[in-house]
């Protein structure tokens, strides 16, 4: 398979990148690692006469501590780099773990977290965890910059808050938040992902955490009833309160049926996976 012809732009600064994009309009697409875009262009699912390669914009590749104890991950940082970053490992171990298991080793070499979030494929892992962690997304266009909370950034399947000419500059996750992401995946695409994240004090949540279900639903879905039921419960998979929370989460989501599983089966997966996510989070927190 071959790619259709296009002009390739390789800006060295964010400013240059935004100007090129503004000049060419929607015919121009952002190119990061290319694991999504190039494959889609080869198969004819996407077309673009101009590609704006962001790999030479150094500031987009940086991972830095953000002022409040969190970490800011540039949209151009590869999964490989994120996995090895000391700040990420210290501030957000569940995210370091997630990016170590995403895609396959070749995807991890060049694929970016920012690109993943911008595509917002409902089957992708990261958004579910980033929403649970209470992360936010930095956006930039020729008109300026803004930040959007992760759960506001994702609007639906393959739909985000990005407006024409905008790109994701970074994703920031806060510090001092314990979290875990557990997924069910037999082969190919993820079937279900569950993320739990919040502040743990003396082995329990004193405030409701965030419980998010992804992949089996069209958009990562917050489960506030389940989250409320986790308050003050021992963080054990077998705890009756945790099981009640899992039952609640299964009813709070609206999974779509597909050739691989009915909606009812996916609800069973939610009931099975939320307790595991809670326990994994507690184990990480203790480590």
């Amino acid at each position: 398979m071959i790619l259709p012809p296009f002009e390739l732009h390789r800006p060295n600064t964010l400013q240059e990148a935004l100007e090129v994009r503004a000049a060419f309009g929607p015919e121009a697409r952002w190119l990061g690692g290319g694991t999504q875009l190039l494959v889609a262009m080869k198969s004819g699912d996407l077309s673009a006469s101009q590609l704006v390669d962001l790999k030479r914009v150094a500031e987009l590749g940086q991972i830095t501590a953000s002022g409040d104890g969190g970490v800011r991950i540039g949209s151009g940082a590869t999964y490989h780099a994120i996995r090895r970053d000391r700040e990420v490992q210290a501030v957000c171990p569940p995210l370091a773990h997630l990016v170590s298991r995403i895609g396959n080793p070749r995807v991890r070499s060049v694929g970016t977290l920012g690109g993943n979030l911008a595509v917002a494929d409902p089957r992708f892992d990261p958004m579910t965890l980033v929403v649970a962690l209470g992360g936010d997304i930095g956006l930039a266009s020729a008109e300026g910059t803004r930040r959007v909370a992760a759960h506001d950034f994702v609007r639906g399947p393959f739909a985000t808050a990005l407006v024409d000419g905008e790109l994701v500059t970074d994703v920031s996750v806060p510090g001092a938040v314990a979290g875990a992401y557990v997924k069910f995946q037999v082969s190919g695409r993820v079937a279900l992902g569950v993320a739990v994240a919040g502040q743990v004090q003396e082995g329990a949540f004193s405030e409701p955490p965030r419980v998010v279900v992804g992949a089996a639903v069209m958009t990562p879905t917050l489960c506030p009833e389940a989250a409320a039921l986790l308050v003050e419960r021992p963080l054990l998979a077998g705890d009756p309160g945790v099981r009640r929370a899992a039952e609640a989460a299964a009813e709070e989501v609206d999974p779509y049926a597909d050739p691989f599983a009915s909606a009812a089966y996916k609800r069973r997966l939610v009931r099975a996976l939320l307790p595991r996510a809670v326990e994994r989070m507690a184990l990480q927190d203790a480590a």
Partner: protein
Amino acid sequence: MKFTVTLNGEVVDGDVEPRVLLAAFLREQRGLTGVKLSCEAGICGACTVLMDGLPVSSCSTLAVDSDRCAVTTIEGVGTPDDLHPLQQAFASTVAFQCGFCTPGMILALKSLLDTTAEPSREQVVEALEGNLCRCGTYPAIVEAVARAVAAMDSSS
């Protein structure tokens, strides 16, 4: 668009349209047909090459993106008279049948062994999780890696 890549240790100047994929450049312009095309969607790993030591899908990489990088194909790993321990181990374990996946497997493993001296079985399996083998030689491949590690251990 011009680019310069260090290909199997040799500095090579290229000049291609931006749309030319790295796999096509390597196979058609450099004759490196050890780079195999199969799924052409980045899934199967047959097209694996190392870029600055990391495995990438050359079927889904622009040739011009190899500018200022070091690229290694299977042709750059060992020679017929001086096989890399991985190649020797694959041969002695017969860790292949048709051999189509083998270049990708060896490059994925070389990337692992270049950074991890004594990988656990779990690390080996994880390093190979993106390389598919339709002949089903996976157990032999994992065995071959163990042999290669032992050989590299005893020679160092």
